[in-house]
């Protein structure tokens, strides 16, 4: 189970994704009243997981099927209702996204911590 510590990697990637999502939501909410601002959104973590995690080990960055980078996915435009001033932010939707991000972050950290505890217990420390 603990040959390459994939659980930690996945948990950390999830926490990082949640952090980025929180930042994107914060950006949207800050710009909720800015004319012509288009709301941003991140793809789900599960979508990025398939492409970056649980793949073959890469020796080069451009290796076939290799895991390229740990960079979070680029934001995409969220298409909701458009205000008369061209702003597409919905504060309610952002709040939901932000709470989701926070819960995902907490979940990732709990997984990380409990695996750490497991590792420590097996080492007898």
């Amino acid at each position, binding site marked *: 189970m603990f040959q390459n510590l994939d659980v930690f990697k996945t948990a950390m990637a999830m926490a990082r994704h949640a952090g980025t999502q929180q*930042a994107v939501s914060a950006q949207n909410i800050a710009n909720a009243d800015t004319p012509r601002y288009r709301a941003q959104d991140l793809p789900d973590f599960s979508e990025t997981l398939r492409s970056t995690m649980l793949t073959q080990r890469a020796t080069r960055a451009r290796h076939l099927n290799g895991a390229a980078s740990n960079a979070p996915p680029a934001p995409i435009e969220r298409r909701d209702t458009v205000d008369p001033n061209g702003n597409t932010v919905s504060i309610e939707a952002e709040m939901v996204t932000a709470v989701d991000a926070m819960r995902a972050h907490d979940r990732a950290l709990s997984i990380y911590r409990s695996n750490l505890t497991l590792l420590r217990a097996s080492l007898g420390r």
Partner: protein
Amino acid sequence: MSAFSDALAVTSSGLRAQATRLRVLSENIANVDTPGYRRKTIPFELSQSRGSEMPQVRAGDVTLDRSDLERIYDPDHPMADGGGFYDGTNVDLIIELADAREAQRSYEANLKMFEQTRQMSSSLMELLRR
């Protein structure tokens, strides 16, 4: 983790912009009875600050509302013209109050995000503790 500091920076830029907006609104409301006063408006715009990739928000330059001033009939008023009229303001209290309501709502949303981001980053720090 830089995502959190980005989030805090962009959130505080939102708080600052909404507070500036509220200040301009209260100037308008305070001057609702000042003869000849033109309503001030303040546009929000994106600003790119150094050290952060996130487009922040800031309140732009104050502009004056060009719409017509209210004509008030009061022949006894010292500023009244030949016809007995003088210029009032073009401030509409209802509009200003509705705008203030929206500013407050956005301010609160930003504050919530600030608090939540802070909570997330402190729970990350908790990992370091045994």
